[in-house]
């Protein structure tokens, strides 16, 4: 029974078994395929003494998706050699068409792509006498993108020392193109036009030159590949979009059409002279509508020549005297003589672990991908190639299968130690010295800051001030306390002032502190509006004092870990940011805050608080977003409401924002403080073109990039994060910056940026229009007289 018949016979029992075992439907095709392959490899291995090999292969579980999977192969049988791949070459046009299932494609998924490769022989089967272990070979047949390949003896061609494995990896593609050039019967000195500047097109330029073409012209749909074409030996490059050259004036003796587009045939025929030959080398998938054979070929005596590789015989015949082996040997001799250099076209060496990311880009239609190779040397040796035995179970098949369940939604999260992500998140400065603080404002946040000033290793609380003497005295402990601001500002033992007053007092207190020469930690926000914030910044600059804004939650370990992920490129280009913040404030909040230490109605008044849930609470998360993505928002639209607050509250208790970031990412921010049962629930999702971060417990990320300990294409937990007192950490690093003469991490500019976002959001909500953040910034600057 042949393999296909066996597969067909096993399919139904397997389906039933998976139903009984409750295997999720999304996993079944993958699992079935894997188990069948594994089983068949084992059957063959058992007949050969049980020896097997394990490696990895690129695997397309479904259209549009790619991953790296376990590969199991039996030992090389009679007439076979086992090759450990060094490079396999991507054929971008064909693989894009296959993975996107373009019209005319009949690929069956799961699918294993691959065309051409080269590597080293690691095992020789019976009857193979001219190859030895260690020989470098080019694989002259369609081999998969895999770290190991079983190759028929006659299709593994030894390569000379003068040929790099990377160049040799193109052998099969070179044969494909060369047989096309040959079928065009190109004579020395003849004019050659290549229509299409993809990988095969540019190889056709190189091989056309080798065949003695007089001058090679490349015709393409854009100028993107002009340089590459000229470097490949083209004398002329024509961009059809520019339309500055009439193709019919080219008068080519031979035209090689290699675009993959049916429409290109007419261009190719026009480029040929009367009596010329047009070689159809590209897989022009699709129908040519309304073909007039008279106009296309007969009247001008054009010859259309189909040149698919499958028409090249294994054994030469009178009608087809060039066998595959003959073509391959010719190609290798051209490589040896360095007359063709396909590696010139390689722009990307793809780490196979990042196959998912690479194919995502390819599927998206990134036309700049001309030449790419999978570099199997990126893998560690154990993953790339190891011996196995028929009885060793393929343990990771089931586990890996879950990743292919489209309904999984990231619930299967790997928990692996990722030291580079989690280590040092709780590090505190170790520099010597102490920064002495006065605390101004001893309400709810003041009490929290007093605690943090005592917890930080390099700060000391030396004075407190509040109009309410009891509050100031309570927080002072052994330190000096007063009800007068001028008294603390006059003290020489105060290096810095921590301002924890109501928002509208940030401005006057801050300016007074700056004029007294004190460094300032301003509880967030910087001020109750942008104009006052700018005046405060100007005062600090004039007095040459350091200003920081207390967005201390930036020091939360998950936020810093998320920043590391973005910095390491594991998310890629940021595409979207989704932030949702839920609080459940009691009605008493507007009169006495969360702690009830002070009874004052400033939180309910817009002219004193500056805003509601966004400014009072969500500003922390806006700073976190800005910190993680490293970009500012440029445009906002918004809606807000006061829906569930006590009578008289004039600030919003719910707000929704749509925004655009500098890099083009689109974001949405939502915040409310009447969310029953959802006190302090923050969900932040950041999606990039290489991965996703979800800051919602459990903190996790998904990436298609390779990194230490990370399996691309899987969800990973952040793991165990160290506990951090964010307020103490923030103050410690501020003190360290001042003592070391460095600017603090969250400086005035950072505080101002968040203030500008919020100002723009409030204006957008009020006006119902989209507001540009830079415009807000300019208006505020003018208002503050600078």
């Amino acid at each position, binding site marked *: 029974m042949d393999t296909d018949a066996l597969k067909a016979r096993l399919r139904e029992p397997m389906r039933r078994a998976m139903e009984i075992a409750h295997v999720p439907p999304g996993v079944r095709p993958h699992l079935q395929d894997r188990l069948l392959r594994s089983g068949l490899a084992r059957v063959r291995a058992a007949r050969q003494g049980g020896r097997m090999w394990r490696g990895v292969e690129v695997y397309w579980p479904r259209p549009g998706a790619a991953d790296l999977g376990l590969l199991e192969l039996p030992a090389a049988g009679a007439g076979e050699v086992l090759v450990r791949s060094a490079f396999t070459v991507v054929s971008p046009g064909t693989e894009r068409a296959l993975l996107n299932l373009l019209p005319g494609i009949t690929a069956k998924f799961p699918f294993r792509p691959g065309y051409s490769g080269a590597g080293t022989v690691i095992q020789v089967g019976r009857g193979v006498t001219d190859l030895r272990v260690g020989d470098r070979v080019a694989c002259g047949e369609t081999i998969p993108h895999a770290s190991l390949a079983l190759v028929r003896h006659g299709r593994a061609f030894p390569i000379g020392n003068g040929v790099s494995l990377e160049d040799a990896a193109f052998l099969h593609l070179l044969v494909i193109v060369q047989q096309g050039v040959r079928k065009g019967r190109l004579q020395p000195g003849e004019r050659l036009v290549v229509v299409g500047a993809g990988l095969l097109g540019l190889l056709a330029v190189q091989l056309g030159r080798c065949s003695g073409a007089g001058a090679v012209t490349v015709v393409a749909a854009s100028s993107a590949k002009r340089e590459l074409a000229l470097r490949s030996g083209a004398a002329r490059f024509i961009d059809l979009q520019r339309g500055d050259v009439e193709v019919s004036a080219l008068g080519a003796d031979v035209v090689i059409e290699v675009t993959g587009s049916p429409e290109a045939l007419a261009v190719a025929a026009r480029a040929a002279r009367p009596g010329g030959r047009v070689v159809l080398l590209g*897989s022009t998938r*699709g129908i040519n509508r309304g073909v007039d054979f008279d106009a296309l*070929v007969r009247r001008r005596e054009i010859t*259309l020549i189909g040149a698919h590789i499958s028409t090249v015989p294994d054994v030469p015949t009178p009608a087809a005297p060039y066998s595959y082996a003959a073509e391959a040997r010719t190609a290798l001799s051209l490589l040896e003589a360095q007359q063709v250099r396909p590696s010139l076209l390689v722009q990307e060496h793809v780490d196979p672990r990042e196959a998912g990311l690479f194919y995502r880009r390819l599927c998206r239609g990134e036309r700049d991908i001309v030449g790419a190779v999978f570099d199997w040397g990126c893998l560690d040796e154990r993953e790339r190639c190891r011996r196995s035995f028929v009885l060793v179970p393929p343990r990771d098949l089931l586990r890996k299968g879950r990743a292919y369940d489209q309904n999984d939604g990231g619930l299967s999260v790997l928990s692996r130690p990722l030291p580079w992500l989690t280590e040092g998140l709780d590090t505190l400065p170790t520099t010597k010295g102490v920064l002495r603080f006065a605390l101004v404002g001893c309400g709810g946040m003041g009490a929290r800051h007093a605690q943090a000033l005592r917890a930080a290793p390099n700060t000391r609380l030396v004075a407190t001030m509040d109009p309410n003497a009891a509050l100031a005295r309570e927080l002072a402990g052994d330190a000096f306390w007063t009800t007068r601001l001028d008294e603390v500002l006059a003290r020489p033992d105060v290096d810095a002032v921590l301002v924890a007053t109501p928002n509208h007092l940030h401005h006057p207190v801050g300016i007074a502190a700056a004029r007294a020469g004190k460094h300032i930690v301003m509880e967030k926000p910087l001020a109750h509006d942008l104009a006052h914030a700018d005046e405060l910044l100007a005062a600090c600059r004039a007095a040459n004092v350091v200003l920081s804004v207390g967005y201390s939650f930036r020091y939360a370990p998950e936020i810093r870990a998320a920043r590391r992920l973005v910095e390491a490129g594991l998310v890629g280009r940021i595409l979207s940011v989704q932030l949702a913040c839920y609080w459940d404030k009691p009605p008493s909040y507007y009169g006495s805050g969360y702690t009830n230490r002070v009874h004052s109605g400033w939180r309910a008044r817009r002219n004193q608080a500056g805003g509601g849930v966004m400014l009072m609470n969500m500003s922390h998360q806006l700073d976190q977003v800005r910190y993680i993505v490293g970009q500012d928002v440029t445009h906002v639209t918004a809606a807000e409401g006061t829906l569930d607050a006590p009578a008289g509250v004039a600030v919003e208790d719910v707000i929704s924002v749509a925004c655009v970031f500098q890099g083009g990412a689109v974001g949405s921010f939502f915040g409310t403080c009447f969310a029953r049962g959802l006190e302090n629930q923050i969900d932040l999702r950041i999606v990039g073109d290489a991965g996703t971060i979800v800051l919602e417990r459990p903190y996790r990320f998904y990436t298609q990039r390779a990194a230490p300990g990370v399996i691309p294409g899987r969800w990973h937990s952040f793991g165990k994060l160290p506990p951090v007192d964010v307020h103490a950490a923030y103050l410690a690093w501020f003190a360290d910056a001042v003592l070391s003469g460095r600017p603090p991490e969250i400086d005035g500019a950072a505080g101002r940026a968040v203030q500008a976002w919020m100002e723009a959001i409030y204006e957008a909500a009020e006006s119902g229009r989209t507001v540009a953040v830079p415009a807000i910034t300019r208006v505020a600057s003018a208002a503050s007289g600078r």
Partner: protein
Amino acid sequence: MKASAECVPLLARGVRAASRARVVPGENAVLVGTGEFAEVARIAFAEAGAVVTMVPGIDGLPAPAEASLLIDATGDPEVILTLLERAAKTARIVLMETTRGRTVDVDFYRTVHLRGLEVIGVGEPEPTDVAAAEALLARIRA
């Protein structure tokens, strides 16, 4: 068929077609068409060494592997399309007759590219073809 000077222009087109088709002596050819033009084409291809089978239309086409050379002398795009569909791998298809502006939808990938077909257009004869036709006619008369 009249073996007269009136045939020369038609025969010249046949000669040109046989020349462009690169006939290999002894190879099997199928010629689709009827009438004088098809007849002179048959003579020209036979003279070049092909073993020509004439069929009046696509219904009479033999199985694909039997001919490496297919000749259309009808100019009917549907016939041409059928030839593309049924041709053996790497076969050559010679288009001798004008389609008179009639069109057809073609999947060149599946027909021409994938099976390595060669589609050869044959236009108007040149003086050398006319001379060859005259010589051929003289031999036939003799």
